[in-house]
């Protein structure tokens, strides 16, 4: 916002204008003072503004939820998004030039990974399933990763590059690699006004691209817009989803009034009696948060198997069975898990099938096939 105001003032106020003490002159004088006070003459990069490219927020989102979170110091631009996309698919971010972000956040797999655990450059497995990337600009709490360990999208980008079981690189090496390339310096100059490449600008560009990954064209979205009708099975599945006696999925995953289909909050959903991964509790150190993981969106489940933070469930049927009869008690279990002593709410086979049909109606083929999101 500050940058935009300065740009506007720069257009309005000539730097060496002559003042006349009339109202216009006083106004212009005050605006000039404001401009001069804000101006940072020493940093040409900070003054540079590439071509603005505001996020195209779907009508369903505009009508129902708050605007996306865009950091003031990283506005969306045409050049920044293009650079971020190139970086997202570039294996040169990894130490041995074999892995890109897209290697574990695979577009046709909903920007997730069909393997329970992705494999790093050393061949070592990770220990959590790759989270799908979609609608992340609408994560208002800005807690990213399964365990909330990153407090902004930009900060999230720093970790995988240097993680020894992922890309196993150093940022110094990434910066040097990109700096010595034939194309990146000019692309950074176009995006940020400088040919000097650093990790901050790399993460900014990739974040701009990831924020464009908006999914809002599922069958359910189309039904919400009145373009199609849900099948009777999908409609009944929605009822199961919303019914407290059966699914009661909506208290964590939202309902049609919130098209994100996640609360982006952290829950213990009754997977284990003992934890081998403390999740959020490992980040905060609070025993009350041991075994809590971020609620994933229900969008694009068709493409994002396996499920849960550790990819333990290969199919949606297994997920539904878990909530129906597989719940396990532990000290931090979320109160939204019901009838735990019986394993869950015991859905009928018919309700399970309908619930699955509804969940699949939230998948968006146009999202994974969008050429803007492909290499």
């Amino acid at each position, binding site marked *: 916002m500050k940058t935009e105001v300065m740009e506007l003032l720069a257009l309005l106020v000539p730097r060496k204008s002559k003042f006349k003490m009339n109202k216009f002159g006083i106004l212009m004088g005050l605006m000039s003072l404001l401009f001069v006070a804000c101006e940072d003459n020493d940093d040409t990069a900070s003054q540079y503004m590439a071509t603005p490219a505001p996020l195209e927020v779907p009508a369903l989102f505009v009508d129902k939820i708050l605007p996306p979170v865009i950091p003031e110091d990283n506005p969306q631009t045409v050049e920044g998004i293009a650079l971020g996309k190139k970086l997202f698919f570039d294996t040169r971010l990894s130490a041995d030039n074999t892995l890109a972000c897209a290697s574990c956040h695979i577009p046709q797999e909903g920007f997730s990974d069909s393997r329970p655990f992705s494999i790093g450059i050393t061949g070592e497995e990770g220990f959590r399933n790759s989270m799908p990337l979609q609608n992340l600009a609408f994560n208002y709490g800005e807690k990213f990763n399964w365990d909330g360990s990153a407090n902004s999208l930009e900060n999230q980008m720093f970790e995988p590059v240097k993680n020894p079981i992922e890309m196993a690189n150093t940022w110094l090496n990434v910066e040097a690699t990109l700096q010595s390339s034939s194309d990146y310096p000019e692309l950074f100059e176009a995006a940020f006004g400088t040919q000097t490449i650093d990790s901050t600008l790399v993460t900014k560009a990739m974040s701009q691209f990831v924020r464009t990954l908006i999914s809002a064209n599922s069958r359910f979205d189309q039904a919400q817009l009145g373009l199609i009708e849900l099948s009777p099975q999908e409609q009944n599945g929605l009822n199961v989803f*919303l*019914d407290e006696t059966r699914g009661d999925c909506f*208290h964590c995953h939202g*309902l049609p009034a919130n098209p994100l289909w996640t609360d982006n909050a952290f829950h213990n959903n009754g997977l284990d009696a003992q934890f081998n991964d403390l999740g959020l509790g490992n980040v905060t150190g609070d025993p009350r948060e041991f075994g809590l993981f971020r609620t994933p969106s229900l969008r694009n489940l068709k493409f994002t198997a396996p499920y849960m933070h550790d990819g333990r469930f290969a199919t949606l049927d297994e997920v539904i069975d878990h909530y129906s009869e597989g719940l396990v008690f532990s000290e931090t279990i979320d109160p939204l898990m019901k009838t735990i002593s019986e394993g869950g709410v015991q859905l009928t086979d018919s309700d399970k099938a309908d619930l699955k049909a509804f969940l699949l109606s939230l998948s968006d083929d146009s999202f994974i096939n969008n050429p803007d999101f492909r290499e």
Partner: protein
Amino acid sequence: MNKIALLCITASLLFACNSDDDNNIDTESDPVSVAFQFTQNWDGNEIQNADYETTTYTTENGTNLKLSKLNYLISDITFTAQDGTVYDASDYNLITARTGGNADFTPGIEIPEGNYNVSFTFGFDDEDNQNAAYLDLNSADGTWSVPEMLGGGYHYMRMEGTFEAAQGNTETFQYHTIRANKHSSLPPDMTTLEFTEDTSFVVDLGTIEIGNSTQIVVGMNVAEWFKNPNTWDLNVNSSVMMPKYELQIAMNENGSNGAFSLISATQE
């Protein structure tokens, strides 16, 4: 008579007309905003973040419980002067008690100093409880909305936790208050809803002197939700309260019967 003289005379007439000692309203000084703080206690013992999931509370029925979550919505903080003049910002505030989120709230209205009856609404009344009408509430807590088949609108309160069941095992509870909705049969769907009934209620904090830096502290005694007039047995009703009309009425009765009170009103 020049413009300045006319302005002075008009202003003096205006002040003379509005200076109403009988109403205890001071319109001569600058209008003021009023700060509120919302706190929670269990029969007088303050509930703090550290108490969630750790401190055991015993209900009137003798059931031991632990709280995990307590979020609630208040709206329409209203200041009524003694002459009946009403000042109402028509705003709302969703409080996240565990973390203290929005516990401090200043309504978006400035009023003349003086004595007022102060009140607010727990939840939304029907006029405000419009389906999916508030983008921030749609976006909050996954969604603060209520499914349309349960009458739509928004939750008033989500109180959640665990309790020691009569059989000795630990079970969960979801004490969710919403607009009461009556169904011809359960489970509910869009065809079973017969009618809804506004179960929000007005909390009257009494007469409070409002100065230029007044802070009003409101307390919720959580124990009251389980106490009076309906002694609540979590072994009987711990889940699936949203679609049950009689339970929403009962929760309304308990909440409106002393769950909220004025803790203090101070001039900073």
